C-alpha cells in the first residue's frame, strides 16, 4: 500500500511538472500576443503584426505539447486516483468538465482560426480570435485553479455516510476565498515566464546580431511586462496567498516558513537556513525578527503557531521539500524583480540595448521563471499534504485500489522515456522557429 501511494504520487508529480512547462508559457504569451495585435491595429506598423504572428507560432508549439501532455492528467484522476475520483467526482468533475467544454474548446478552436484565417477574416476579426485564444487559456487556468482551490479549501459540499462528497452549492465553487488570490498569483506568474521568454529571445537576437530590430522590440516589451508582473507576483497576489495559507492551512504555513518553535513575541522571517528534521530546527539560519508577523497580520508581535503546535499527522509529510520549494520561489522572484528593475532603468536611460552583460544575464535567466512557477505549485501541493481534500480526505485514501505499484512504475518509466523524446523535439522546434526569426514566412 505504501508503495502504491509512492508511485502514484511520483507519476502524477512527474507528469504534471512536465505538463506545466507549456501552459505557463501559453497563458502569459497569449496576453503579449493580444498586446502586439492590438498595437498593430492602432499603429499599423507591420513589425507589431510580425511579432504577434511570430509568438503565435511559438504559442502553437507549446499549445500542442500542452494538449498532449494534458490529456494524461485528466486520465490519471481515474487511472491512478480512482478512489479520489469516486468520492469527489461529483464536485471537481464540474469544474474539470467546464474546463474542457469552455476553455480548452475556445483555445483550440480559435488558435486554428488565428493561424489560418488572417487573410480570410480581416484584421479586426483576427484580433478577436487572438483575444478569444487569450480568454480560453486564462479561463482554463480559472477552472483548474477552481478545482485546486476546492481541494485546498473545500466549500459547498456535504459528506454522505459512505464518505462520498456531494455538491450542495455550485456557486460557492467560484466564490471560494482561496480561488481569486491563487488564480491571480498563478496568472501573473505565467506572465513573468513569458516576459522572460520574450525578453530572452530579444536579447538573443541583439547579441547574435540577427533580427536586431525585432530583438529590440521584444526586449523592450519583455522587460516592461517583466517588471510589472514580477512586482505583482509579490504584492498583492503573493501576499494574499500567503495570508490564505496562514489562515486556512496554518500547519503548512509553519512548515513552508520553517518555523519549528512558536515564538511568543512575534515570528521572525527566515531568509536562509536548512531544516534539520532530526533536531527539529533550522541549521545555519539567517532571519529577521518579527517581520513575518508583520507581513502576515500587520502586527509586530502577533504570535504565529510553529510546527510544535500541530500533531505529527497534521503536518505535511515532506517538510524540507516544502520549505525549499517556497524559499526557491521567493528567492527567484526577488532576483527577477531586481533584474527587471535594472533593465527598465537602463531602457529609460537608453542604454539597455548595449548592456551586453545584462542581456546575457536575461538570456540565461529564461529557465528560472519556469523553476519558480513549478516550485510555487510544489508549495501548494506539498503544503496540502497529507491531504487530498484539506483536512477531510487523506492522500493515501485516494489511490486506485486495484492498480499495483509495479504497473504504475511501468507506466511511469514509459512517460519518462516518452517525455524525454517530446522534450528534445520541443526544443528542436522552438529553436528552429527562433532561429528562422519573425520575418520567416512559410509557404
Amino acid at each position: 500500500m505504501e508503495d502504491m501511494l509512492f508511485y502514484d504520487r511520483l507519476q502524477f508529480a512527474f507528469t504534471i511538472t512536465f505538463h506545466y512547462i507549456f501552459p505557463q508559457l501559453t497563458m502569459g504569451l497569449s496576453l503579449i500576443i493580444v498586446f502586439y495585435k492590438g498595437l498593430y491595429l492602432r499603429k499599423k506598423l507591420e513589425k507589431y503584426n510580425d511579432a504577434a504572428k511570430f509568438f503565435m507560432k511559438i504559442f502553437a508549439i507549446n499549445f500542442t505539447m500542452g494538449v498532449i501532455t494534458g490529456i494524461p492528467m485528466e486520465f490519471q484522476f481515474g487511472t491512478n486516483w480512482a478512489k479520489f475520483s469516486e468520492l469527489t467526482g461529483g464536485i471537481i468533475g464540474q469544474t474539470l468538465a467546464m474546463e474542457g467544454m469552455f476553455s480548452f474548446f475556445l483555445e483550440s478552436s480559435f488558435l486554428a482560426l488565428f493561424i489560418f484565417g488572417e487573410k480570410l477574416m480581416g484584421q479586426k476579426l483576427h484580433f478577436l480570435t487572438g483575444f478569444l485564444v487569450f480568454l480560453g487559456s486564462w479561463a482554463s487556468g480559472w477552472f483548474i485553479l477552481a478545482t485546486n482551490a476546492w481541494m485546498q479549501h473545500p466549500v459547498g459540499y456535504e459528506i454522505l455516510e459512505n464518505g462520498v462528497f456531494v455538491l450542495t452549492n455550485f456557486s460557492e465553487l467560484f466564490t471560494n476565498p482561496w480561488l481569486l488570490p491563487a488564480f491571480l498569483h498563478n496568472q501573473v506568474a505565467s506572465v513573468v515566464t513569458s516576459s522572460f521568454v520574450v525578453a530572452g529571445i530579444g536579447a538573443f537576437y541583439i547579441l547574435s546580431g540577427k533580427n536586431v530590430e525585432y530583438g529590440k522590440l521584444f526586449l523592450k516589451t519583455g522587460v516592461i511586462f517583466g517588471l510589472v508582473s514580477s512586482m505583482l507576483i509579490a504584492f498583492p497576489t503573493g501576499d494574499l496567498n500567503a495570508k490564505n495559507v496562514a489562515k486556512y492551512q496554518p500547519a503548512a504555513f509553519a512548515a513552508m516558513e520553517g518555523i519549528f518553535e512558536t515564538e511568543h513575541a512575534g515570528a521572525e522571517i527566515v531568509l536562509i537556513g536548512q531544516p534539520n528534521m532530526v533536531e527539529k530546527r533550522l541549521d545555519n539560519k539567517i532571519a529577521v525578527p518579527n517581520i513575518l508577523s508583520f507581513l502576515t497580520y500587520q502586527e509586530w508581535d502577533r504570535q504565529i503557531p510553529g510546527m510544535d503546535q500541530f500533531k505529527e499527522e497534521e503536518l505535511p509529510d515532506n517538510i524540507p521539500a516544502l520549505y525549499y520549494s517556497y524559499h526557491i520561489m521567493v528567492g527567484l522572484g526577488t532576483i527577477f524583480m531586481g533584474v527587471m528593475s535594472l533593465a527598465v532603468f537602463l531602457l529609460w536611460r537608453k542604454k539597455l540595448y548595449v548592456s551586453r552583460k545584462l542581456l546575457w544575464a536575461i538570456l540565461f535567466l529564461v529557465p528560472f521563471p519556469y523553476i519558480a512557477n513549478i516550485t510555487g505549485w510544489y508549495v501548494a501541493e506539498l503544503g496540502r499534504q497529507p491531504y487530498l481534500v484539506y483536512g477531510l480526505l487523506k492522500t493515501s485514501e485516494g489511490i486506485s485500489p486495484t492498480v499495483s505499484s509495479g504497473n504504475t512504475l511501468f507506466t511511469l518509466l514509459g512517460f519518462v522515456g516518452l517525455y524525454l523524446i517530446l522534450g528534445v523535439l520541443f526544443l528542436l522546434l522552438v529553436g528552429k522557429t527562433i532561429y528562422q526569426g519573425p520575418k520567416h514566412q512559410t509557404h
Partner: protein
Amino acid sequence: MELFWFIIVAIVLVVFFILDGYDFGVGIIHLFMAKEEKDKEVITKSAGLFWDSNEVWLVVAGGLLFMAFPVYYASVFSGFYLPLMMVLWLIIFRAIGLEFRSQFSFQMWKDIWDKSFGVSSLLLALFFGMALGNIVRGVNLGGVENGISKYEGHYFFLPLWDASFSPLAESPGVIDWFTIIIGLISVVTLAIHGANWIILKTNASINTQLKNTIVKLNTVLVILTVISLVAWQWIRPNCFDNFMDKPYLLIFPLVYISGLVGLFFVKKFDKEVYGFLCSCALVFGGITSSLASIFPVILPSTNAVNDSLTIYNTATTEYGMSVAMGWGIVGFVLLFVYLIVQKRLMGGKVDKMDYGH
C-alpha cells in the same frame, strides 16, 4: 436525469469517434496506400488540420463522464489501466506525427512521422474497438475468485489477456477472441471512414482506387459483423432482449445497416459527401447499437457476486447533475455551432489550404 447525462455523454463520444475516427482512418489508409509524396502530404493535411479540435470532444467526454458518473469513471479508468495508458502514448505519437512532419523538409524526417502517425492510428482504432468489446462483454467486477471479492464490488483490474483468450474465462483479459473481432470491426470501419474523408477533402491521386478499396473493406465488414453477432449471441444469450422489449431501439442497428448497404454504391454516388455520411452512419450505428443492447447497464459483471454497473448506481447526486445541465447545454450548443462554422470555413478540398506553420 441519469438518462439525460447518459445520452449527452454518448452523443459526445459518438461525435468524437466520428470526428477523430476519420483521423484514425486517414492514418490507416495513409499507412497502407499512400505511396507518392504529394498524396502523403495532402492526406496528412486532411487530418492534421482538424485533429486538435476533434480531440476537444474526447476531453469533454472524459470531463462529463467524470462529473456525472464518477463511480464509473473511477472503476473503468483504473480497471483498464494498462490499455488506457497505452492509448495515451499512442495519442501522443499520433499528434506529434501530424504536427512535426512538415517542420523539416528532408525525407527521412517525414518518413519517421508518417509511420508514427500511421501505426498509432491503426493501433488506436484497434484499441478503441477492443475497449467497446470489453465494455459489452463485461469484466470480473470486484475481482471475484472462488466466490469471494478481492476489491469493493465496483472495482476490477483487467490483465492484458487471460491464458485461454476466451471471453467466458472467469477473469477475462483485455484481449480475447471476441474483443479482437470487435477491434477488427473498428479498424475496418474507421479505414472506410478515413477513405471517405480523404475522397471528400483531397484531390489525392489514389481517390478512385480508394473507392474500390472501400467496397472490398465493406464486404469484409459485413462478414465480421455477422461473425460478431453470432459470437455475441453465444457469449450473452440475452443480448438482443432490449431490442425485443423496446422495438424503437432498432433504429440504431438500422442506421448501421443502411450505412453498410449504402457503401456498396460508393462508386455511383454523385456527391462525395454521401459516402462520408454512410460511414458516419456506421460509426454512429455501431456504437449506439452496442450501448442500447446492454442499457441501462454500462459495464456488465461477469460474476454472480457483484452487480453490473448501470447509469443509476454510478451517477452523482440529482443536484450536481441538474446544476451541470445549465452550463452543459450552453457548452453543448457552443460546441456544435463551432463544429458547423469550422466545417464551413474549412470546407472544400484541403490541397490548397495553408498548413500554417
